[in-house]
């Protein structure tokens, strides 16, 4: 989406400090807008928003309470953030100042999504191999990401140069890597 398109969509909506659009299922930044005085790391933020939506979706499904209308509201010390699925391919994160009334925020997010949805492209998402997404997930959440690929290599016995080309790994090796990722993060399953 051209920046002008997103900026135009935001248009007269007050109190918005930033908008991040995340392409799913890979949780990659698709587009963003932020006020000139903000200095957020756009790619990381978009990725974490995607992960949050996915985790929230899994949690609600396990409670039997999921619907495509769900949204996530986060209140931090200075921000009020709404995360919402626009369609199966895109998630939007809208950031307001924490003082903004919640009712107004919900109304404005609804308005913004209505404006953004028609101008987003229809994607033929080519899913990357699950093992690649597992490794990316690990790099995002491992406590010591700088050395975590060495740990995966040591745990699995698969040399690091092969892990760097994870698309080419056999199914058995891919499974071993996913086990290592779960082990390192202490998770029973990966929401990716």
């Amino acid at each position, binding site marked *: 989406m051209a920046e002008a398109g997103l900026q135009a969509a935001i248009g007269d909506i007050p109190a918005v400090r930033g908008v991040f659009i995340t392409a799913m299922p890979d949780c990659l930044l698709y587009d963003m807008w932020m006020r000139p005085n903000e200095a957020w790391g756009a790619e990381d933020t978009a990725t974490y928003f995607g992960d949050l939506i996915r985790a929230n979706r899994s949690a609600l499904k396990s409670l039997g309470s999921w619907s495509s209308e769900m949204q996530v509201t986060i209140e931090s010390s200075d921000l009020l953030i709404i995360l919402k699925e626009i369609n199966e391919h895109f998630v939007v994160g809208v950031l307001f100042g924490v003082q903004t009334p919640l009712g107004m925020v919900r109304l404005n997010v609804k308005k913004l999504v209505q404006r953004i949805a028609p101008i987003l492209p229809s994607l033929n998402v080519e899913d990357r191999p699950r093992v690649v997404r597992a490794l990316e997930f690990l790099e995002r959440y491992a406590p010591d990401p*700088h050395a975590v690929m060495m740990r995966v290599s040591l745990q699995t016995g698969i040399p690091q140069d092969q892990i760097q080309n994870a698309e080419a790994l056999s199914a058995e090796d891919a499974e071993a890597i996913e086990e290592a990722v779960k082990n390192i993060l202490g998770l029973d399953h990966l929401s990716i």
Partner: protein
Amino acid sequence: MNTWLPKVSTTYPRLSMDFLGEAPVVYHCHHFNLYLDQTIDDALGPDEGLALRTRAARGAAYQLLSSVYARLGALSTSEKLEIAHELFQAMGQGRLELLGDKHGGIAHGEYLHYGFVWREKYGTTVRRTHPADAVAAGYAAGALAAIYDLPANAFDVTETRCYAQRAERCRFTLEPAESPGPLLGVAGRGPIIETTSTGLPGGRREERILTIEAGLREHLAGVRPDERGLVQAFGVFVTRHMANYYNRLAFDALSHVKARAPRVQPMLEGLLRESGHVCVFHTFGGILNSPEWEGLVGRPSSDTCDVIDGSVAIARALGFGRWTIEECDPGKRFSMRAPATYESAYYRALSQPSTHPVSYFMQGAAMAIMQLANAVDWSGEVRLDHDFYLSLFKKGVPWKVEQTRCTAMGDPFDEVVVTAL
């Protein structure tokens, strides 16, 4: 202070090595302790890793305590038990209460170093699936065997509750070993001293380094555990630890990987090196950045050699060996030598020559010293936190390290060289 502790402590100034009883000991921080344990589990898997860590701690603790008891002369069983409790705490390992006899028993742990610091460092981001306190477990088993003059491997021990796994406090059960298994090798003071040369000529700026080392050793002699049995200083939790524990882990993990997955031996070596890197960056950096250092030496200057001198002195004071500066070309090249490191001395003392260099801690340390000297701006406020540490890798590490000599391979000294890429 425990009145008996000085009687069992020995320092060899020409080697910068320390012993309690016959056991070599070094100071190490929680970053190193956690990282090394984690690396062992990565190499062996969580079950075998835990088993090795427990056995290694049991053997090292048995050597430590039986030699301490021998040094102190006639002791009753209750006196031996009290010494075991006090020594554990004096080493900054937390509080361990051992209740048992020659048939086994139980132990309770509070503020155990490993479990406590794991939860502090990783508890909010990772769920732990295996207990963390192999050192306390092994110590309890080794202590009970030493107290009752039984073989080192007389007891099996299991941590049944662990603080790192959200238990309120830790609990261990000790039972007579069903199949005791082999006794793991431990290196003693005599063989280490006998096989380590004292003839290495001094390196650069020795006079200054010796002065700093002496001042630091005096300061460290006054460091005491707090009421939790932990030592929290310079931004890290510090233990005075059994070098045989560390050495046995690295030795067995390398043997295991060489036999089962030789293709990933470089990964294991890289992670062992990283254990040293993360340790030295945080601990040495914390000391250099402390008010105590400012009082003792003065604020580090922007001269890289200033930080390198200080780091080498810190290494000596912590018992890592008599590291000396061979070359120091700021930003380009830095090399250190030592008559032995606590790692290479282990191989020599056990007559286990190596075909490859084994001083992984010194290798990682040399890289970290280069980082502290070149990547940190000491002229302003210095924040050596985890985010800053990770940022060094995002930018790319502009140096490489190589161990060019190793006494475990038959060389007359250990040498590591860091060069710019």
